[in-house]
């Protein structure tokens, strides 16, 4: 079986600045993986490289066994960072989801009944049916995330890529979104996401990739979230608190204790 994502000796950068070089990474089909790393570590660039929107200096990128530009339209589902969305744009939730079907053949500007039914079924499943006709600015953070997730899922993709799906939403919504992604993964969709929330990864994702201008480590959260690997990824002190099957990750010494130590 082909890997869902396979990078071989890939070097990427902007103009003359190299972001990462000779990166090799393989994510098997059916995996649910989270990429973590500090700001500026190249996580988003890695995601863009996988999606084919970032030109590579050298190396080979294959998704589902094919070069990105040879993939049939709709093979990959993509959810962008919500912060990058223009919320004042005049579209409803239904129109956003329908955009996922815009690569289908057909020259008419309107959508077919069949397409609209598909949107309604998916919206029903994701619990956003009631806000389908709302303007995108008039829905909650969780509904926004689900609307863009619905757009990504409308073509039944084999690979789903999400850029910071846990950013800017409350802890309950974060939990709901990650559970929803877990359910989708159970149905066979390979999922790859970036996040800054190590605790969300630790408690919800079966696989984690530590990245900082290159691959630091990858594996199960329990094996990867060690003081050594996290310090290597982020620099500085990282504290890991274990409680039964759960563990909590926090940054170094709290400020008030650091003051006392001085």
């Amino acid at each position: 079986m082909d890997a869902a994502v396979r990078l071989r000796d890939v070097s990427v950068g902007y103009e003359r600045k190299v972001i990462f070089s000779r990166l090799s990474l393989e994510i098997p089909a059916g995996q649910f993986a989270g990429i973590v790393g500090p700001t500026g570590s190249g996580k988003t660039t890695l995601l863009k490289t996988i999606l084919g929107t970032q030109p590579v200096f050298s190396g080979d990128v294959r998704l589902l066994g094919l070069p990105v530009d040879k993939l049939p339209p709709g093979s990959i589902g993509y959810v962008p960072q919500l912060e990058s969305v223009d919320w004042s744009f005049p579209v409803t939730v239904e129109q956003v989801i329908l955009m996922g079907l815009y690569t289908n053949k057909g020259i008419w500007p309107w959508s077919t009944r069949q397409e609209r039914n598909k949107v309604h079924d998916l919206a029903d499943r994701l619990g956003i049916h009631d806000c389908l006709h709302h303007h995108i600015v008039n829905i909650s953070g969780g509904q926004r995330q689900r609307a863009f997730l619905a757009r990504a899922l409308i073509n039944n993709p084999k690979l789903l890529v999400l850029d910071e799906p846990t950013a800017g939403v409350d802890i309950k919504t974060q939990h709901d979104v990650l559970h929803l992604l877990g359910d989708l993964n159970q149905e066979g969709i390979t999922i790859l996401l970036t996040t800054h929330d190590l605790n969300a990864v630790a408690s919800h994702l079966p696989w984690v990739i530590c990245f900082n201008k290159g691959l630091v480590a990858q594996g199960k959260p329990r094996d990867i979230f060690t003081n050594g690997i996290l310090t290597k990824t982020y620099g500085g002190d990282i504290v890991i608190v274990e409680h039964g099957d759960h563990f909590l990750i926090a940054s170094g010494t709290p400020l008030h204790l650091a003051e006392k130590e001085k």
Partner: protein
Amino acid sequence: MMDFLLEPLAYEFFRNSLLASLMVGALCGLIGVYIVLRGMSYIGHGLSHAAFGGAVVGFTLGLNFYVGAGAMGLLAAVLINQVAKGGKIKSDAAIGIVTTAFFALGIAIISRVRTFTQSFEAALFGNILGVTSEDLTVIALVTAFTMVTVFLMYKPLLFSTFDNEAARVFGIKTGVVQLMFSFILTLAIIASMNIVGVTMIAATLVIPAITARMLTDSFSRMIIYSTLIGAVMGVVGMYLSYIFNAASGATIVLFGASLFCLVLLFNYIKERFILHEHIHRHGDVIHSHPHGPRHEQHDEADREESGQSRP
């Protein structure tokens, strides 16, 4: 009143100008939606200046006005795309460099060669008297071509305008869409130059679109409203140009700006005195809509959201 409206139609030049301004208004209204939503409001201003430089260069080479303006306008559009492609130079800076350089070339030639038989004043400020049958044909062809292109490319244009990167991931050929959009934009600007003038085109492109945006939250309705507002702006502006004997571009823009202010005022009043009274919260979503016998649908939705039963 009817006599007042019909009287100028007795003149052929006015009939030509009215038809031209109707088409140009609708054309700019349509294209303007994409310009405003892509955050490129300044592009019309820049490209029209580049096309003006092209028209002057073309004239010195003995070429037709539209050939010179078209070639230089398209070249400017492609150059802006290329310069801004890397991301280091933003598109507003690229517009500033490329189009001003082309405009400067035109001005330099005009100041150097002082034996021009053609006046470029119409291209700069718009001229009610200057609409020829050639102008009308060009405007009609460009308007028809643009409308058909926007109709056929509605979906990829909408997706790439909303989220270019996602559109690319989903399989839209965003490079082709961008190139095609630059092409129809340049054609629209060149076709509109003699009617509204280089100095006024930016406003003709932007005013109908932002006015329409204030009236609706739907993209398809925004397209229709903006096209209609543009057409009305063109027709009323042209009548005002005739009545006040002023440059057509200026009267079209002034009428459009007045319309915009009116809608702005209407929205302010609506928000301040009508919607403000109905603001309420459901969970983390703030709603603002009236309640009462005429708004049962909203009340029912609110009850469902809050888990209350119907009283």
